[in-house]
């Protein structure tokens, strides 16, 4: 049987590049905070990379509107994207276990470190699209991603 193409190589690259872009916080009267819990990371300490996207085009092109890295301990981490303009957002996350700053993949391009998407969205043998991962942020919101 074949491994489902969870993340094509471009998708992996996308996630990696997104993670190093500088955080961006639009200011405005209607700004909301998105609080994210991430669970089911590796048992050993790792660094969690999270990228935030505000539309399908940016998601597809890996143009994140914000990105953060935080320490992950005992498979858990928390972080906040503060001051977001109301709208729909999608998140991609991965746990960097070996500290090389990227989501490692095997020779066939399948991730070998744990990753996840907002809504705990799963693609059908590929990364889920923006619609599947999108969450509405109109006011302060808490959400969770279970890595897999």
């Amino acid at each position, binding site marked *: 049987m*074949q*491994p489902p193409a969870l993340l094509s190589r471009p998708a992996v690259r996308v996630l990696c590049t997104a993670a190093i872009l500088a955080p961006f916080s639009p200011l405005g009267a209607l700004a909301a905070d998105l609080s994210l819990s991430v669970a089911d990371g590796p048992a050993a300490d790792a660094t969690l990379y999270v990228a935030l996207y505000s539309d399908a085009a940016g998601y597809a092109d890996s143009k994140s509107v914000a990105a953060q890295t935080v320490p992950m301990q005992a498979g858990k981490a928390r972080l906040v994207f503060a001051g977001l303009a109301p709208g729909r957002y999608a998140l991609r996350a991965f746990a960097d276990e070996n500290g090389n700053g990227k989501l490692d993949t095997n020779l*066939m391009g399948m991730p070998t470190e744990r990753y996840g998407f907002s809504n705990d969205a799963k693609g059908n*043998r590929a990364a889920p699209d923006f619609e599947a991962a999108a969450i509405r942020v109109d006011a302060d919101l808490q959400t969770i991603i*279970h890595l*897999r």
Partner: protein
Amino acid sequence: MERRELLRLLASAGALPLLAPLARAAGTDDWQAQYEASGAPWKIGFATPPDDMPLTRATVRGRFPDAVAGTLFRIGPAGHDLGGERYHHWFDGDGMVHRLAIEGTDVRHQGRYVATPKRVAEVKAGRRLFEAFGTMPPGVEPPTSADSINVANTSVLPMQGEVLALWEGGSATRIDARTLETLGLKTWRADLAGMPFSAHPKVDSDGTVWNFGVSSGQGLLALYEISSEGTLRRAAVVPVADMPMVHDFAVTERHLVFLMPPLVYDGKRKEAGASFLDAHVWRPELGMRVLVVDKQNWERRQLLTLPAGFLFHVGNAWEEVTPRGTLIHVDYVRSDNADSVFTSSREVMRGRRVKSTEPYLTVATLNLSTGQATQTALAQDAEFPRIDPRRVGLRHRHVVHATQIRRDLPGFGAIARTDVETGRSQRFSYGAQAIVEEHVFVPDGSKPGWVLGTALDFGRQKTVLSCLAADHLGAGPVAQATLPYALPLGLHGAFVPA
């Protein structure tokens, strides 16, 4: 992935029962009821052992020769139903690994389910959570990785005191050879984690282990070279157009040989919800492509074509340089099409016998110099071909194989040893109440050697282990051990001398 990874997967499985209502809503089918209602006397071969099987002594008739003192490890699909749902294909079931410890007149059996992340999660949930080779249980979600649906049910590779339980779509699973405890997934190198590792590795005469893996969705063929000590020497992936189902391969002194039946993966069918099996399309216009890869330089590849046909298993291949060119001789078990995997191997799961295209031992000759490929079918219906392990990749004469297809019974009734150069064959029939499983050849120095294997005696509802003289199969077993119970019909095994 190592033990840590498995433990983590097991821990995360706790969240899955939340999805239960989704699956329940989709309803169940009646295959389990049909299986239970079936009056087929052989259906015990497809029953699900309710639990692991503790070490149990068999009744032994005769004495097993010193050359077969050791352990016969076997594996096969065993967890066929769960929560009242029955799989629709023989190849779907969760693997159970067996060890048959043999010493003279003492034979003991132990069986243990491989504790794959899939099985652990599903048993905990009390129902199926993941898709299988030939079944899409209701309400399952797309797998998160190949190893999330790995059933470790196809073959075993003893290595360095462990036994690797092999599937073909994902990693090998490490098993403690003494306790059969599941130790975790085998990762040959960090960047090979989760890669497909086929169930038919070939061990060269110098101990080198060669294997491959197919990623149908990506059209990639992985190649592996592993030292006899179990360390990876090389791995790479090469692209293959119109990726077919490839279950087995052969090695020669200088080449890797892949017979590629025109049963081709169609990703669109998979996306539309088909099982992995049903995502494959029969495309006879492609013929049987034969990919020959230079062992030393995997970039040197040659494609030849045989007439369209289907196979699971290859016996052996060897090569010679002749005035007509470099020839590779390869014998395999060929059928005209792939119907049996879609019909016969499914219907047994509800206790029905449906006859299909029959497989015959076939010898092909590949001329690497001219690119011509020809083949001859022998008059032997066959499956589970095995050869003298000392002759892998070298000129061999004999193939041990199951034979004797019956109209009203699944599987085979006899074990045979056929000379692939002359076609001469001898056999031992286990009778009208038995289904033969794979038998292996066990060498005995310069003597003719032994044939060792199991059969399901469904008349007595017991599994028997027999040892036959390789040069006198017709004389019947020189020793036979009878277990006090029947094992589910399995797939492949390997013998490890004491």
